[in-house]
């Protein structure tokens, strides 16, 4: 009996038992669709997190203040104000820190901006002219502020695109905007950096740090110092140079007592990636369980089929079907059910990957290797869970099979 004949006969019995076959397929279908969406969700999340992180700038190190300790009470992360503008200036020193290409200290406060009748609350950042290159941004129109603006504590501001739009300013350069009741002149608008689900890099305002400190904060401490390493390969060196310099400046000898933290883009990336992986493994586990349940469904149905078709099996054997032929027939049937579930599940998964992002903010990546793999796995499940019923069918003696009523 040829494979072609076996296949034809398997297909025939699947078609004959349409309802039962489609219910069996449904179990596999759901499992496979879940796998494809899970993998797609994981990959989509990873890529959006990665693009959000790389939007911060390139070869970036982020220095944040350490916690304060008052008596035995340790304050929250970044609660102290140990970093100063002067620290940033010192870190820019090429002799002590040759691998640091640029330094941009930053202070941030949430402040309301008013332009004409429109008002909008956004994060107002005080920084230096180096901010633009350190954060990997560029100007859409106008220009960034200069060292001279810094020296003069000039009331000039650069807006992000979203901020400009929200304030109803479509030709903003040269216009005036009130920040905390102090009028500022808009000298430029930043190019869009894109947004992720958690941050909008286009909704911000940047003013000279000196202006921010004198007009709003009255303090010389800064909330963050951004460092740009000279290249990808010198990030480690830049990190240790910055650490040594800051320890020396703060008069600390033991690194364990450091009152600041240096984070690299890579560490942030790794953290997110590992969270993503955990999530993917978790969802993948659920999908695997649903596949297992689907497989047991196939086995269940095939066992029912063996019992129900016991007479047919007996007849086929009486007519000359060998045990191997009967086994093959049931295996082909089970794997065809698996394959059908796999293909239908892949179809549903791909449709889901295209449609679901319209309703939720998450991106779902379509992975072709995962899709092909899922179909193969579905067929494999059909084969594996078909083995036992097929063996049972093959072992039936023709007499007991023919005798049953």
């Amino acid at each position, binding site marked *: 009996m040829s494979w072609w004949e076996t296949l034809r006969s398997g297909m025939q019995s699947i078609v004959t038992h349409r309802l039962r076959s489609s219910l069996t397929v449904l179990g596999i279908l759901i499992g496979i669709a879940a796998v494809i969406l899970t993998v797609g969700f994981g990959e989509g999340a990873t890529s959006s997190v990665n693009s959000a992180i790389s939007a911060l700038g390139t070869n970036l190190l982020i220095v944040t203040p350490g916690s304060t300790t008052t008596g035995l009470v340790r304050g929250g992360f970044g609660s102290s104000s140990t970093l100063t503008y002067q620290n940033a200036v010192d870190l820019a020193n090429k002799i002590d820190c040759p691998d640091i290409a640029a330094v941009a200290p930053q202070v941030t406060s949430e402040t309301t901006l008013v332009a004409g009748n429109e008002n909008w609350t956004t994060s107002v950042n005080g920084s230096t002219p180096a901010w633009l290159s350190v954060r990997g941004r560029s100007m859409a129109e106008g220009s960034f502020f200069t060292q001279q603006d810094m020296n003069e504590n000039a009331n000039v501001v650069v807006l992000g695109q979203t901020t400009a739009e929200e304030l109803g300013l479509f030709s903003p350069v040269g216009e005036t905007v009130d920040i905390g009741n102090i009028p500022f002149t808009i000298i430029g608008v930043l190019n869009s950096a894109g947004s992720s689900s958690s941050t909008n890099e286009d909704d911000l305002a940047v003013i000279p740090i000196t202006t921010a400190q004198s007009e709003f904060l009255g303090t010389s401490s800064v909330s963050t110092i951004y460092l740009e390493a000279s290249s990808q390969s010198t990030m480690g060196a830049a990190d240790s140079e910055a650490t040594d310099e800051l320890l020396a400046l703060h008069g600390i000898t033991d690194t364990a007592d450091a009152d600041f933290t240096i984070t690299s883009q890579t560490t942030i990336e790794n953290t997110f990636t590992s969270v993503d992986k955990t999530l993917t493994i978790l969802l993948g586990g659920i999908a695997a369980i649903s596949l297992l349940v689907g497989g047991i469904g196939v086995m269940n149905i095939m066992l029912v089929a063996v019992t129900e078709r016991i007479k047919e099996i007996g007849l086929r054997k009486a007519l000359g079907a060998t045990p191997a032929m009967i086994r093959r027939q049931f295996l082909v049937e089970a794997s065809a059910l698996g394959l059908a579930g796999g293909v239908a599940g892949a179809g549903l998964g791909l449709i889901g990957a295209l449609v679901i992002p319209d309703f939720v903010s998450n991106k779902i990546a379509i992975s072709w290797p995962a899709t092909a793999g899922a179909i193969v796995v579905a067929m494999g499940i059909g084969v594996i869970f078909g083995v036992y019923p097929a063996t049972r069918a093959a072992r039936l003696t023709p007499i007991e099979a*023919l005798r049953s009523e």
Partner: protein
Amino acid sequence: MTQRQPAIARRPIVQLVNVWKTYTPTSVPVHALRGVSISVFPGEYISVIGPSGSGKSTFMHILGCLDVPTSGHYYLAGTDVSEMDEEHLAKVRNRRIGFVFQQFHLLPSLNAWRNVELPLIYAGVDRKSRRLRALEALEQVGLGDRVDHHPNELSGGQQQRVAVARALVTEPDLLLADEPTGNLDSRSSADVLGMMDALHKQGRTIVLITHEQDVAEAAERIMRFRDGKFLPGSGVPGHEEVVV
């Protein structure tokens, strides 16, 4: 007896020598066959008659290579099949035996000619000749105009004809009919028995198993089965001297 004059010169197609079949469902063994010996020669039409429980079903299973004897020998066309495994038995059934069952045993999802071609699929015959031979066999049983009908569109008698066509399509050495009229009304029964007769006249070897005397009488030789063996002198076998 006239037909069997040259019997000694011919070789039997079926020869059972002291066949026993013992079941041990519990610790007490049940002997279903107690030393059955019979020879069937090519072209013979034999009926085996016995009450239910006489062991004639077991005899039919052994004869049809659906089961093997506990002891004794069964030579089918000269080959000892009494110790074959299921794989080889399946091939022997496929090539040498055509079954006609009381329940017809047609597959309801297949039409008449698809049912008839089934044994040819297992024999590895190619598609084209399968269809040709199936149609030919259906023509032979007078169903040439019903080849595309499904079993549920055929009467009982017609279904049994399809089953006969299926039994004939492989040109078997032995046609084994197990209560072929058991599920039929008297007209269809006569019809099927008439067909058996016609096949016998064409030279087919037929063994018909039944519990009805009038059905058994359709055959040229009647073997009486009782308590796991043939009654002495029934059918006047007298072939035991034939050595394989």
